[in-house]
């Protein structure tokens, strides 16, 4: 019995998080189409934020390039799953095998993740030697490079023009499944001793190296895994919207996802989920406020000025980073109070 | 409540000082004092807490407990810029010249808190008289000087702020014995002019020779204290320095 209880305590956070995801999807299934679409968007964002977390949370390093890998995943999936006839029309210069390719959507998403992961492997191998400010600037440069390359490789991606006609398959339960899958993947990874070694290096790089941790290898593993998840997230995003624009994979979503992770708490998987939830809800409320509310007693519409929502969210992010940089969860995972003995289980080493 | 310093109350007095870094206690209940015009040395092995002590006096570290008073006034933690304005000059471990700036510029920075430009220029000229080598290289980057030259430079830089108390953290570290001799000769001259000096050293014999009184610090506590001459002859001295249990240890 103690063994089962122990195991439950260990995977408690995972079960709870997945339950939250499905609960949200289930609740949304009763709502109107508009709200459902917002929820799907939130779940797709969750995949992206979990991808960001896999690297940033475990390594403690800043990664500005996650959205770039989303773009790679999105465009890869698009090119592989779009109707060949559409491709011949919009992208006449595609190589023949690519132009004729027509994979099922799921394969497209995973292929997107795969290509993103491969790119991450190649660029990550040199990049993971950097730390501190250098890795921040390097990953920002990487994001910009990806943005420029995709935006100008017109024969492959359509360049600055929108790429239309992506098969739409991202519904409520699909996105929930993918979100749950991403959470599962992140959880399994962070329980491995590789991730543990990485977190040790996060706390004290010198001591970790001295203990035999192969820091470069661990960072690269996290980077590649994170890129895979980001790539899949990008594919989901593309297939949800139905149209791809390179502009949607640049600084604004970068800021959004980093905000979600930081506000929730950079150091825990629950932080990724909580942060996405909080910011998504706030965004929705602010959007409603900007759309206007008709007051019941006075027949007038009261609306917040346009753009206020964006300002307030950015202000929230600033306040959190200034006064509570560890975020809402502060590195702790959520868990069932029943199964917790000395409080929630710390998935990070005791400091 | 201000108490003007007079010859009967110490220039620097430390009472029950506690310094912690996270879980590690670097200093526990350290008390000592320095009278005006004295040279006091604090000796101890690596990790004894000596640098933390100077750090607390200078405001570099925030004490977890205890009191530090200089010239009768309490010392506020973290107020680094006020340290030198109160009359405390610190020469930290490792010298820390401003490597990219010239020798002359380093010296001028020592006088940051002073307004009497002419007098400062005179004093700098006199330093160059006493140390012709520094004078010759006055427009060279300070980072290019040898270890000993840098040590002289930072002491001169500290003196230019006209301190009442000069604190030195391991001035002999990394220097050849002959060079260390010169450094301590300089310190003796400074002391002869009435300046109060607090010097922290791993090199115990050197410190004992130079100081009126010595404290032996180990494991964050004062193990032994007294006039240097007495301590030098004390059979428990080595034990106290190396952290072995002695009769005198409290």
């Amino acid at each position, binding site marked *: 019995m103690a063994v089962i209880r122990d195991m439950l305590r260990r995977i408690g956070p995972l079960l709870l998080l997945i339950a939250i995801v499905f609960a949200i999807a289930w609740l949304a299934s009763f709502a109107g189409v508009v709200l459902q679409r917002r929820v799907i968007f939130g779940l797709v964002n969750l995949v992206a934020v979990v991808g960001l977390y896999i690297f940033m949370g475990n390594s403690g390093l800043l990664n500005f390039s996650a959205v770039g890998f989303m773009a790679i995943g999105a465009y890869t999936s698009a090119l592989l799953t779009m109707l060949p006839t559409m491709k011949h029309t919009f992208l006449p210069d595609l190589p023949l095998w690519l132009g004729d390719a027509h994979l099922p959507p799921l394969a497209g998403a995973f292929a997107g993740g795969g290509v993103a992961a491969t790119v991450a492997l190649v660029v990550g191998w040199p990049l993971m030697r950097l730390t501190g400010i250098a890795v921040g600037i*390097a990953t920002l440069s990487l994001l910009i490079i990806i943005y420029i390359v995709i935006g100008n490789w017109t024969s492959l991606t359509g360049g600055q023009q929108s790429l239309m006609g992506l098969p739409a398959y991202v519904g409520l339960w699909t996105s929930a499944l993918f979100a749950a899958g991403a959470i599962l993947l992140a959880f399994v990874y962070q329980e491995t001793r590789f991730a543990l070694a990485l977190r040790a290096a996060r706390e004290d790089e010198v001591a970790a190296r001295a203990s035999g941790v192969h820091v470069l290898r661990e960072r690269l593993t996290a980077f590649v895994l994170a890129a895979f998840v980001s790539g899949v997230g990008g594919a989901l995003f593309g297939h949800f919207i139905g149209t791809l624009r390179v502009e949607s994979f640049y600084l604004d979503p970068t800021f959004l996802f980093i905000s979600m992770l930081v506000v929730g708490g950079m150091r825990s998987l629950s932080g990724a989920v909580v942060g996405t939830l909080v910011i998504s809800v706030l965004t929705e409320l602010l959007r409603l406020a900007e759309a206007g509310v008709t007051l019941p007693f006075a027949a007038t519409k009261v609306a917040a000025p346009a753009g206020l929502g964006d*300002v307030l969210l950015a202000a929230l992010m600033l306040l959190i980073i200034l006064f509570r940089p560890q975020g809402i969860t502060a590195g702790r995972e959520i868990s069932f109070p029943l199964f917790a003995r000395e409080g929630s289980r710390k998935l990070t080493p005791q400091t | 409540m201000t108490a003007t310093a007079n010859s009967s109350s110490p220039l620097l007095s430390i009472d029950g000082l506690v310094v912690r870094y996270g879980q590690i206690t670097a200093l526990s209940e350290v008390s000592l004092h320095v009278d005006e015009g004295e040279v006091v040395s604090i000796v101890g092995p690596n990790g004894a807490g000596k640098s933390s002590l100077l750090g607390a006096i200078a405001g*570099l570290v925030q004490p977890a407990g205890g009191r530090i008073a200089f010239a009768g006034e309490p010392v506020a933690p973290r107020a680094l810029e006020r340290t030198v304005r109160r009359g405390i000059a610190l020469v*930290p471990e490792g010298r*820390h010249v401003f490597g*990219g700036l010239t020798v002359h510029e380093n010296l001028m920075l020592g006088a940051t808190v002073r307004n009497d430009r002419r007098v400062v220029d005179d004093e700098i000229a006199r330093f160059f008289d006493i140390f012709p080598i520094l004078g010759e290289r006055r427009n060279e980057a300070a980072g290019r000087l040898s270890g000993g030259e840098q040590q002289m430079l930072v002491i001169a830089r500290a003196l230019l702020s006209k301190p009442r108390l000069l604190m030195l953290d391991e001035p002999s570290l990394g220097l050849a014995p002959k060079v260390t001799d010169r450094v301590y000769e300089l310190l003796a001259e400074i002391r002869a002019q009435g300046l109060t000096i607090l010097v922290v050293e791993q090199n115990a014999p050197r410190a004992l020779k130079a100081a009126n009184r010595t404290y032996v610090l180990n494991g964050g506590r004062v193990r032994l204290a007294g006039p240097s001459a007495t301590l030098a002859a004390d059979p428990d001295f080595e034990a106290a320095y190396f952290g072995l249990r002695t009769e005198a240890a409290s």
Partner: protein
Amino acid sequence: MQMIIQVLADAFSLGGLYALTALGIGLIFSVMRLANFAHAEFVTVGAYVLFALSGEPLVMGVAAAILATMALAVLTERLAFRPLRNADPATMLISSFSVSMFLQRLLVFLVGSRIKTLDPLPMLNNAVTIGGVQVSSLKLVTIIVCAVLLAGLTLFLKKTRFGLQMRAAAENFTMSRLVGVRANTVIAAAFALSGALAAVVALLFAAQTGFVQPRFGVQLVIIAFVATVIGGLGNLFGAAVGGFLVGIVSILLQAFLPPELRPFREAGLFLVVILVLLVRPQGLFPARGLKERV
């Protein structure tokens, strides 16, 4: 010959703008080890002030722009960066990024995201003839202003007492405080200078482009960051040289690259950044005191 002179004029005027922007960023980085992304918004705000005072005499517009950006810079430091003085690099970078996004969105909220046109230096919309060759007056003035400001800043840092204190703080922040340099004053001064530089850049850049929008300064600053990294983080001389190099290489590539490859030249630039960070992280002209910390 005409083309060569024009390319050179383009190269040096763009290089000058990048150099001034890089200096503004470098000033702050050298004393605080902070990569100030919000510098983009300092430039943008300067341009908007110029736009707002379009009808007024130039002197008034310029003075107002300089005062506004200096005030913004000092205020940003006081509110958003001072609490983080001892934070780790990742937190500071995220914070810097957040400040930039916040100011950008505040601008969008206050003035809208539509492009506004302006022509702050109409008297320079002509060309002068030098040695039989026509050169844009604006470009010429840009080069001269950049050179003068660079010289002025250098003089200030090397010859004045306060400049010496700033250089000491950039070398070894803690030690400089121990000799009595006031940290808050030096940092505020770095931000104020940075803001003033941003205003000048805004004036010259707005005169060249003719319009302003909420992302006005972003492109400049991103490239100026590249220049700072290549020239050597923490080294002002390196930042300026880096800025010139980037501007010159950028224009030359634009002139001589085949058209299909031109958009990729910027990607190439960022590739160089990554290479520099990997191979020679201290940049071309490493700052001497970069490693020293008491």
